[in-house]
């Protein structure tokens, strides 16, 4: 779950809802201090926008004009809580008003719409105009966790959103517009499937980590005794 890749600038998914927003603000500050044209994109859920971190981050990034793109994946649920039960607004983007930054709503299942909104926000950030909040309207197709019966999601709602699934939508668009042929799509699809199978195999065949590694990577310099 905690996908991270420092070499690609991915600081990691977080187990603490809302925590990443503050960290992203710091990454934005750093980009500014270091004089790079980097921007930090921070992804979070609708549920997380009720944490103090969301408001603190937007405010700080706004007054310091930090190059941060706050991207809310509004999938309508935080575990069992429908958005309408956890906040009294429909558009989370409205909260940008309080921090005097752009707040845009996009169809989160439309790749092109997301691209356009991101492009504009990134340009603003690079021009020193500060952060933006992009709210991507989307849906959580599955339960919150494997095995969640998700009884709180009405069947009609699920059916409606499944018909808007962004992946087939993009594929169909590309095929219909001759950007991609069916064969090319099938090739890419099986290539990705193979990659996944390969990764699973690699994980399953990898040895367990040695016990000593339990105390590695806590500090840069200190490695404690492996002692109970």
């Amino acid at each position, binding site marked *: 779950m905690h996908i991270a890749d420092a070499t690609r600038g991915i600081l990691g998914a977080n*187990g603490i809802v809302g925590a990443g927003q503050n960290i992203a603000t710091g990454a934005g500050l750093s980009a500014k201090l270091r004089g790079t044209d980097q921007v930090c994109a921070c992804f979070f859920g609708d549920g997380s926008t009720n944490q103090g971190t969301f408001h603190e981050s937007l405010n700080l990034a706004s007054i310091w004009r930090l190059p941060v793109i706050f991207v809310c994946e509004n999938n309508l649920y935080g575990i069992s809580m429908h958005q309408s039960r956890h906040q009294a607004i429909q558009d989370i983007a409205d909260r940008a008003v309080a921090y005097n930054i752009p707040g845009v709503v996009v169809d989160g299942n439309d790749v092109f719409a997301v691209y356009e909104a991101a492009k504009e926000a990134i340009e603003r950030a690079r021009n020193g105009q500060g952060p933006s909040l992009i709210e991507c309207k989307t849906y959580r197709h599955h339960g919150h966790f494997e095995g969640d019966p998700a009884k709180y999601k009405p069947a009609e709602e699920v059916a409606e959103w499944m018909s808007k699934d962004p992946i087939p939508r993009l594929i169909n668009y590309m095929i219909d517009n001759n950007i991609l042929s069916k064969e090319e799509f099938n090739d890419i699809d099986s290539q990705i499937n193979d990659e996944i199978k390969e990764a699973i195999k690699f994980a399953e065949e990898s040895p367990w980590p040695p016990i000593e590694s339990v105390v590695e990577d806590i500090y840069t310099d200190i490695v404690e005794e492996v002692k109970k």
Partner: protein
Amino acid sequence: MKNLSMMEAIREAMTKKMREDPTVFIMGEDVGAFGGCFGVTAGMFDEFGAERVRDTPISEGVIIGCAVGAAATGTRPIAELMFIDFVTVGADQLVNQAAKMRYMVGGKIKLPMVVRLPLGAGTRAAAQHSQSLEAWLAHIPGLKVVYPSCPNDAYGLMLKAIEDDNPVVFLEHKILYGVRGEVDENAKPIEFGKADIKREGKDLTVAATGRMVHEALKTAEELSKDGIEIEVFDPRTLFPFDKETLFKSIEKTNKLLIVSEENKRGSFAGEISAMVAEECFDNLDAPIKRLCAVNSPVPFSPVLEDYYVPNAEDIVKAVTTMF
């Protein structure tokens, strides 16, 4: 008597109190119709409705703070956080507000509130969902810290926690939720600061909390075959702490091993050790020993996590070195 799981025992105690006292209510993330992250409040929404079993947004600060304000003004809130790890998010409200309000207003306000905190490793939930942070909480004057290890204790201690007029943090070990035991539903609430000797023995005292009580009991049989009879001391509440029962046990056994799932550095196990060293030293005929988790974040890898937490085998080894 009723055979209940730890989870059911906690639920039954809260339900009993909510039936008796209309000012008792529950709030937390997904505690309503969903029944809570681990299912502790399952069915309570059906009985008490949305006013008294309140789903909150993901906002630990205001969950705890709202309990403070509600408790200060005539209700008895029970706040549930999904994991003790998230207490950090609401820490100001617990540490600077709940624990200090009464003191700062010269005793004019009371705060009858319970904060329920599931804790502990062993669920493959990694570094941010598995910690044992009881030492932080027990460190704070103004909080009472309850840590049951079996359904009967959980039941009686929860009744007391809700009746208590002070902020109580109620620690629930996730691995123990499914552990079953006999519960006397008509029993009185269990007073805080009353430890329980979970097994009598004459040769060595093992002081343990939560899941570690069970690990200690597991080893007891094995050690008994080798002629070592350990006494298992479960404080049940970390503050107030029942020194008297612990010291009495040490007077008999002259040896103390403390087993805790905390990181060893700065652990409550260290506090127990210090109490005994200061006040009961003359009764010891071996150095006090602490067996705790490794000083690392809780690792995700199953093999590392299994190693990280003390287990029965570690206890046997530690005990053997004390003779």
